[in-house]
């Protein structure tokens, strides 16, 4: 059986050498993408540095890193949502609402432990996410419609909660604002938190059953049902995670910028989606890696920081970001078509 068995595999694989393992073409594309992103990031940094030496100063790098930390925390959540073929446009509003409520609370109780404020913000975000998850998973509303609607509800609630006013720096206790500047083990708190989230998310996505089920649901929802995966639960879960992370990001944002406003992070969801798409998260669902979205976030973070430094008007940022999203998804689509065509060429007629 054994010797004949290998001939079958050889015939199936369409290769004369049955013993050489066949490298997966699309897998190598994925590797190529991350390498490409990394190279691009380095080239961009070098280029910007040559134009403006203040780019790679400790202060600026720190600023970039803390900004990127918040962006990438949100991108982690968004990655899970997009893997299930969904999208969440409400995160900017969720972030604002949680940040606002946390800021108001610490303003009211200045003695409050910052950790409690974080938990409070995450709780608010979690509730928002659970509501969304309910609408998407249980009622079956399209994610784009549900999150578009709730985006406005959350945004409206933020204004109402703040009474139309800002919560500004002097209303927040120092302990709260210090969260963004303090450090643990010599690493800035925001970056530290982001790193922890990467590790947890990586472990969750790759080494737990639920994490893999998220990929399964996105890769083939019908099969997922047949193999007994509770798809409703998975959908609900990803929106809840997204909400919780938005809440966390909201508190960190408010602490970092020392202000909570009605229009905090308005439109920020677009940057987050851009980071995911750049990082290779497929809009069609089923694939996406933590390493990819970190690189995507870093690239976006550098661009946002670097453009003003090389005298690109801040008004170009929107357009550039949109173009990046479009180009990234188009390149994804074209690469995918190439892979498919290649697979067809391998078939013998």
């Amino acid at each position, binding site marked *: 059986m054994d010797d004949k068995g290998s001939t079958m595999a050889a015939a199936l694989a369409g290769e004369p050498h049955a013993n050489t393992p066949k490298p997966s073409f699309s897998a190598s594309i994925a590797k190529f993408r991350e390498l490409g992103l990394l190279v691009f990031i380095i080239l961009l940094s070098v280029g910007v540095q040559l134009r403006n030496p203040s780019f790679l100063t400790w202060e600026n790098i720190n600023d970039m890193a803390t900004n990127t930390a918040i962006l990438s925390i949100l991108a982690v959540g968004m990655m899970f949502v997009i893997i299930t073929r969904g999208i969440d446009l409400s995160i900017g509003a969720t972030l604002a609402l949680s940040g606002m409520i946390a800021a108001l609370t610490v303003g009211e109780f200045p003695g409050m432990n910052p950790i409690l404020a974080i938990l409070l913000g995450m709780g608010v975000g979690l509730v928002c996410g659970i509501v969304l998850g309910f609408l998407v998973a249980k009622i079956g*509303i399209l994610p784009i419609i549900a999150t578009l*609607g709730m985006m406005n509800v959350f945004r409206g609630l933020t204004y109402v909660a703040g009474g139309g006013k800002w919560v500004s720096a002097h209303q927040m206790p120092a302990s709260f604002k210090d969260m963004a500047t303090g450090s643990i083990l010599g690493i800035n708190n925001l970056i530290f938190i982001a790193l922890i989230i990467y590790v947890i998310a990586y472990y969750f996505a790759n080494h737990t059953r639920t994490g893999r089920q998220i990929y399964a649901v996105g890769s083939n929802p019908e099969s997922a049902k047949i193999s007994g995966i509770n798809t409703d639960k998975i959908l609900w879960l990803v929106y809840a995670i997204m909400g919780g992370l938005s809440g966390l990001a909201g508190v960190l944002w408010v602490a970092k910028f020392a202000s909570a406003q009605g229009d905090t992070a308005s439109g920020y969801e677009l940057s987050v989606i851009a980071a995911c798409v750049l990082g290779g998260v497929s*809009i069609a669902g089923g694939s996406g890696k933590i390493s990819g979205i970190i690189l995507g976030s870093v690239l976006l973070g550098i661009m946002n920081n670097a453009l003003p430094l090389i005298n690109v*008007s801040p008004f170009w940022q929107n357009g550039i970001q949109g173009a990046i999203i479009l180009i990234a998804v188009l390149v994804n689509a074209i690469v995918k078509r190439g892979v498919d065509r290649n697979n067809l060429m391998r078939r013998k007629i």
Partner: protein
Amino acid sequence: MDTRIITNKRDFSLKGFFLQWEWMLVLIFIGVNIMNMSLSEYYWDYNNLRDATMNFLDKAFIVLPMVFIIILGDIDISVASTVALSSVVMADLYNMGVPMPLAVVICLAVGTVCGFINGLLVVKYKELSAVIVTLATMIIYRGIAYILLEDQASGSFPDWFSFLGWGYVGSIPFILIVFAVFAILFAFLLHKTVFGRRVYAMGNNSTASFFSGIQVGKVKIIVFTLTGLMAGVTALFLTSRMGSTRPNVATGYELDVIAMVVLGGISTAGGKGRMIGAILAVFLIGFLRYGLGLVNVQAQVLLIIIGLLLIFAVAVPKLKWGKNKPRKLT
């Protein structure tokens, strides 16, 4: 051979007639009016109501083609950005010395091109959904508007231009007349023509439509292009109404427009819904806004209400009709 009875006469069912979503809208509409009347004594006044329509009809022009897009099972969230870009280009050109009539034509042309690009991308890259394509163009179009005008306002249009948004023909607002004409045209296009029938067919079953010889890509591009054109029309009226423009005009219009379409009974799954429903929803939301505005309800609370209405409109049919046969509106 057995005899077969096939008739081509449709039975009329009174119950079926009244079980239509549009009657529900009429009831809500009446309810909203009663509520508004009890909230404010200034509400039920012909002149006030007439002028109120002038405030909300600008975005209604996009509702008309958006009905087609949602019937196709697609979505276009770039419309507000298209409005902003068309408006900004028009104002910029006018201030650079281009005659206003030509600037108006260019405004419509810019909208049309934006819509065409959306359609082209959606058709050529089927693996990308309309959601992601229009999300990207939404950022790009508004981004270009920012590049052109940065954070400035641009205006001082000729006097005749303000007639669009502020003028009356007799005692009827000009914008209302234009909207009525467009509404009739679009309703005719959707319900009475070959094109409209094809749109419904594609929304229900795109593959079968393609196999039946319908040029599905062409139909889709036309629909997206029409949407761009109507966003240009909205840009004209909005700019006229405001007297000047900024890159951030029409922010959030996409939500309003989609909310109106969905509230009008057009299913986001595609293939179902009627133009009259969306038109009713335009006035329903418009009057609701106006009434609540009269009693000083904040704009932000209105935001919440519109968001909830959108959710309500998509959730209710799924809950109520989910178990029985879905309502048939085609």
